């Protein structure tokens, strides 16, 4: 079945806990710039406190983060099959390999992003809907993208041609503040290697679910689960920017959260094997409020450069590129 947005039905008793978003990452290897555009919906779409949160964050090497969040009432959001728009942020995805494409447009604070491009990789496969807090969490990851467009950030104008791209879709029912979280990461190699990892966790990240790692290389996809995956972290980084400002002011105690300075993902199934090591350059913190009741969650976006070494389909692989790891809870 083709993917689509999943707004709650009028008679859905869990609609107050509705969450859904579309997400696009860009990895420009020429400049080292990593960006993300996300448009998310939080809460019963018909309830006044429910929110549409647009995010545009761009990290330019040597210039730090640009952009921020744009928080509006959920009524400001417009939705299509796999398109979301609110205010100055819009994300659209048509994920099907061959004819697939994605586009992201956002102008938030000092970041202005306009990107689009076709799917250039095979279907990645990950799509699941798992128990999550008092509800469930769905996730679909789309094929690797080649993005063209313009990114304005840190007072610079960057013309992007064929940059690495990633897009996904999340949906479900839970409350920010539930004892849940996740680890997610996307590593995009300059030569086309794509590694996507994810796992659910408790809020403190002490209890983790089975990890799923998808590796795409030379048109071939391999997946690793559970004991085939080892994720380790080392060192300490702190967020350099926090958004939105009102939530950052309310949760001043989270200003110095400790995030890893290095993330290592090792996978192996006896045939394929790969080790990815990301050295984190910078961390941005996003604070999300639960609109239906008191509660919040903190998402950290850690970006940096990675190197990967291993053996895929019987051939040695050595790659480097840009990556982002998301730590949520």
């Amino acid at each position: 079945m083709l993917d689509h947005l999943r707004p709650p039905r009028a008679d859905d008793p869990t609609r107050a806990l509705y969450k859904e978003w579309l997400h696009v990452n860009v990895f420009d290897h020429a400049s080292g710039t990593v960006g993300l555009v996300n448009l998310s919906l939080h809460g019963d779409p018909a309830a006044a406190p429910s929110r549409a949160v647009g995010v545009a964050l761009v990290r330019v090497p040597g210039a730090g983060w640009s952009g921020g969040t744009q928080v509006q009432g959920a009524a400001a959001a417009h939705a299509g099959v796999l398109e979301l728009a609110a205010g100055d942020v819009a994300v659209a995805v048509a994920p099907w390999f061959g004819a697939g494409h994605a586009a992201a447009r956002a102008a938030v604070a000092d970041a202005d992003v306009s990107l689009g491009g076709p799917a250039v990789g095979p279907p990645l496969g990950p799509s699941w809907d798992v128990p999550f807090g008092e509800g469930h969490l769905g996730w679909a990851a789309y094929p690797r993208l080649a993005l063209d467009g313009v990114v304005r950030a840190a007072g610079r104008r960057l013309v992007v041609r064929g940059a690495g791209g990633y897009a996904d879709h999340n949906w479900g029912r839970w409350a920010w503040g539930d004892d849940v979280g996740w680890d997610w990461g996307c590593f995009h190699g300059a030569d086309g290697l794509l590694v996507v990892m994810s796992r659910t966790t408790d809020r403190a990240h002490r209890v983790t679910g089975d990890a799923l790692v998808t590796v795409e290389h030379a048109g071939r996809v391999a997946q690793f689960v559970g004991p085939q995956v080892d994720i380790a972290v080392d060192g300490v980084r702190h967020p350099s920017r926090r958004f939105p400002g009102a939530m950052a002011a309310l949760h001043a105690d989270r200003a110095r959260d400790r995030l890893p300075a290095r993330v290592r993902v090792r996978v192996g199934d006896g045939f394929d094997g790969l080790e990815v090591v990301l050295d984190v350059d910078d961390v941005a913190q996003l604070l999300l409020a639960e609109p239906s009741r008191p509660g919040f969650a903190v998402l950290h976006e850690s970006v940096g450069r990675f190197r990967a070494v291993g053996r895929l389909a019987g051939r040695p692989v050595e790659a480097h590129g840009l990556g982002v790891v998301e730590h949520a809870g």
Partner: protein
Amino acid sequence: MPADRGLAAWVRAIVGALEAADPVGAATLRGVAARRSARIGLDDEWVAVGFDDHGALRVRRVDGPGTGPWGRSSRGTVVDVLAARVEVRDAVLTGDVEVVGTVAEVAAMIAVIEIVLDAAMRAPALQALADELVAAVGAPTGPGRAPVPWYPDEIAPAELRLLRALGLLADPPAATG
């Protein structure tokens, strides 16, 4: 650019929106404020704020901070905080936010702000007031303010090195010498 309400009207609007959106939060705010009164400054405006014996908000214009507890900031700083361009901690360290009083008085004033901020996450009326202030002042542009180191000079370098080695420094090493 829309007209600014003025400080007294901002205070009345914020408390009114809180009472409408979150009666429990409003009651908590009254409990924290108890019978205290404080003066609030915003740019060149000053008001005295408190609740009377019946729990009704009292706001009156005054000339300055006076001798009791007080807090002050500026519209520009408030908008910068809302735009995530400056951390509250840094605004305090640079003197862009001042809160003066006994420990209990300062704690009460900060708690009142936190109650309003917490309620604002689920109160469109309070969010609309924030949008109104930003529209009146003008959305800030350019990069955010740099973090402010806060370790006092009298902390010896050896002590800082030890704390850093143990991973106990809250500030980045570059900010601590």
